[in-house]
C-alpha cells in the first residue's frame, strides 16, 4: 500500500510543478504586461515598478523565484492590482467560505445521490425506480448556473423564504441555496451511476450465493452489494470534485458569497495575473490531492487492484 501511495505521489508532484510552470509561461506569453494602461507610464516609473515586482530579471530567474516562493514559503507573491494586499491574503479571505459550502454540497450530493441510486436499484422497475430515474435525468440538465436563478426566483422572489445572496459569516439561511444549486446535477449523476452499478452487482454471482444461503436482504445489500457497487461512484468523485470547484465560481458570483471564485473572476476581469495564477494553482493542488485520495480509496476497496 505504501509503495502504491508513493507511486501516486511521484506522479502528483510533477503534475503540480507542470501546472505552475504552464500558468507562469502563459502569464508571460500574454500580450501586454500587468502595468500596461491606456496612457503609457513614463519609462522610469515603469522600470521602477518592474524592479519592485522582479519583472526586470530574466524569465528563468523569475520562474525559479516564483516556484521557490510557493514551495518553500507557500507564498504566491503580491497582487498586481491591489498594492497593499498579497495573493495569500486574498485567498485566505475567500477560501474558508468556498470550503464550507463546497464540502456541504459534496456531502449532500454523495449522501442523497447514493441513497437514491441504491433505493432505485433495490426497487427496480417500481414507481420509486422510475421517480429516481426521472429526477436524475431531469436534474442533469440543471447545472449550477441554471439552478441558481431558478432557486432565487422561487425561494426569494415568490415565496420570500430565503435571502437572495450574501454570506453573513455562514448563517444557515445563506448557505442553503448555494449548496443546493451547486450539488443538484452531481446528485443526479451520482444517483444514476449508483443505480446502474448496483443493478449490475445485484445480478452477479456472489449476491446470488449470499441470497441462496439465506442471508436477510438488508445484510446482502449492506454487507455484500454496496461495497463493489461503490467503485464506479468513487472513480466519478474525482472529476465531480473538479467540476464542483469550478461551479463555485458561479455560486460566488450569483449569490455574492465571497469565496475564491469571486477572487478569481475579479482578478480575471482586472487582469490581476498574480491572483489568477494563485487561485489556479491552489485549485490544481487541491484537485491533485483529491484525486490522490480517491485513487487510494479505490485501491483500498477494490480487491482486484494490486499494489
Amino acid at each position, binding site marked *: 500500500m505504501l509503495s502504491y501511495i508513493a507511486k501516486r505521489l511521484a*506522479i502528483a508532484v*510533477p*503534475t503540480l510543478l*507542470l*501546472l505552475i510552470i*504552464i*500558468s507562469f509561461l*502563459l*502569464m508571460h*506569453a*500574454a*500580450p501586454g504586461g500587468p502595468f500596461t494602461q491606456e496612457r503609457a507610464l513614463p519609462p522610469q516609473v515603469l522600470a521602477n515598478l518592474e524592479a519592485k515586482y522582479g519583472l526586470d530579471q530574466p524569465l528563468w530567474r523569475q520562474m525559479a523565484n516564483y516556484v521557490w516562493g510557493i514551495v518553500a514559503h507557500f507564498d504566491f507573491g503580491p497582487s498586481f492590482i491591489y498594492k497593499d494586499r498579497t495573493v495569500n491574503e486574498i485567498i485566505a479571505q475567500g477560501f474558508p467560505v468556498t470550503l464550507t459550502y463546497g464540502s456541504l454540497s459534496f456531502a449532500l450530493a454523495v449522501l442523497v445521490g447514493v441513497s437514491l441510486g441504491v433505493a432505485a436499484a433495490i426497487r427496480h422497475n417500481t414507481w420509486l425506480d422510475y421517480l429516481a430515474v426521472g429526477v436524475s*435525468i431531469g436534474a*442533469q*440538465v*440543471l*447545472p449550477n*448556473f*441554471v439552478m*441558481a*436563478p431558478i432557486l*432565487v*426566483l422561487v425561494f426569494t*422572489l415568490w415565496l420570500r423564504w430565503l435571502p437572495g445572496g450574501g454570506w453573513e459569516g455562514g448563517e444557515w439561511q445563506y448557505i442553503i441555496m448555494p449548496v443546493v444549486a451547486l450539488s443538484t*446535477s452531481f446528485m443526479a*449523476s451520482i444517483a*444514476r*451511476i449508483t443505480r*446502474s*452499478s448496483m*443493478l*449490475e452487482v445485484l445480478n452477479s454471482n456472489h449476491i446470488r450465493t449470499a441470497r441462496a444461503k439465506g442471508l436477510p436482504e438488508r445484510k446482502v445489500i449492506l454487507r455484500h452489494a454496496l461495497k463493489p457497487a461503490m467503485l*464506479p461512484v468513487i*472513480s*466519478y468523485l474525482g*472529476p*465531480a470534485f*473538479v*467540476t464542483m*470547484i*469550478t461551479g463555485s*465560481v*458561479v455560486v460566488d*458570483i*450569483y449569490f455574492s458569497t465571497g469565496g475564491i471564485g469571486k477572487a*478569481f*473572476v475579479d482578478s*480575471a*476581469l482586472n*487582469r490581476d*495575473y498574480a491572483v*489568477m*495564477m494563485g*487561485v*489556479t494553482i491552489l*485549485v*490544481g493542488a487541491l*484537485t*491533485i490531492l483529491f*484525486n490522490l485520495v480517491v485513487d487510494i480509496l479505490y485501491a483500498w476497496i477494490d480487491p482486484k487492484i494490486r499494489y
Partner: protein
Amino acid sequence: MVVDTIKMKSLSDRLAAEEVKGRSLWADARHRFLRNKAAVVGLVILFLIGLFAIFGNYVAAWSNEELDFSVMGQVADLGGPSLSNGHYFGTDDLGRDLFARTVQGTRISLMVGIVGSLIAVVVGTLYGATAGYVGGRVDNIMMRTVDILMSIPYMFVLILLLVMFGRSIAMLFIGIGLISWLDMSRIVRGQTLSLKHKEFIEAAQATGVPSFTIIWRHIVPNLLGVVAVYATLLVPLMILTESFISFLGLGVQEPLTSWGALISEGAGTINYGTLWQLAFPLFFFIITLFAFFFVGDGLRDALDPKDR
C-alpha cells in the same frame, strides 16, 4: 458527468466482440434505435432546433441588433412576448428582439457544441488509436500525459486563456478543443487494445501494411460505434461548458450571444418582472440538452442491447 463508465465499457466490449449473425451490427442498431421512443423524439427535437437555428432569422420581424425604441425603458410593461409588434419572445432590457437573439444564441451554442465534439473526435480518436496500437512505452507516456492533463482544473485554465489572449470565439474553440479530447482518447485506446489482436489486424500486419495505414484503414473504422455514441454525449457537455463561460461574461461577446449569455442576462433581470428573458433561452437550452442525452443514450443502447 453524463458519461456512464460502466455502460461505455460494456459498449466497447460488445463492439469488439466477434460477429456471428448475418445482419450487420448497424442495421440491427438502427432497428433498435427506431423502437426507442425517447431517442426518436430527441432526434426530432434536434431536427426542429436545427431548423430554428437555420431559418429562424427569416421568421423574425426584427434583427438581433436593432433596438425597439417604443418599448425601451418600459420593457416590463410593453416588452413581453406578443405577436402584434413582432417580438414573439418579447424583448430584452435594451429593447432588442429576444426571438432574433435566441436564434443567434442557438446558432453559436450549437456550433460550439458540434465543433468541440468534432475536435474531440478527430484528435481523441487518432491519439487514442495510436497509443493503443503502438503500445509499450509510447502508450505509457501518451496516457500518463492524458492523466496529467485531466487533473488540471481546465475551466480555470480556459478562463486564464480567454482573459490573456482576448475573448473571441476562436479562442473559445481552442480552449474547449484542448480539453474535450482527453476522455475520448481514453475510451478509444481501450477499444483499440481489444481490437489489436484480431485476425484481420494480424493479416494486415503479415502482408506488410505500414502501422499508420493499419490504424487509419482498419482500426479507426471499427471504432466508429464508440466514437459516435461518445461524440453525441459530448455535444451537450461542450454546450454546458460554453454556457458556463458565457454566463460569467467571459465567453461570446456582444452583439453575438449564446444560450449561456442569454440565461445570464435573464437571470440578472428576474427582479424586474421580465421573466420571459430567462424562460425562452432556458427552454431551448434544456430541451436541446435533453434531446442530445436521449439520442446519445438511445444510440448506446441500440449498439449495446444488454438490458439494464
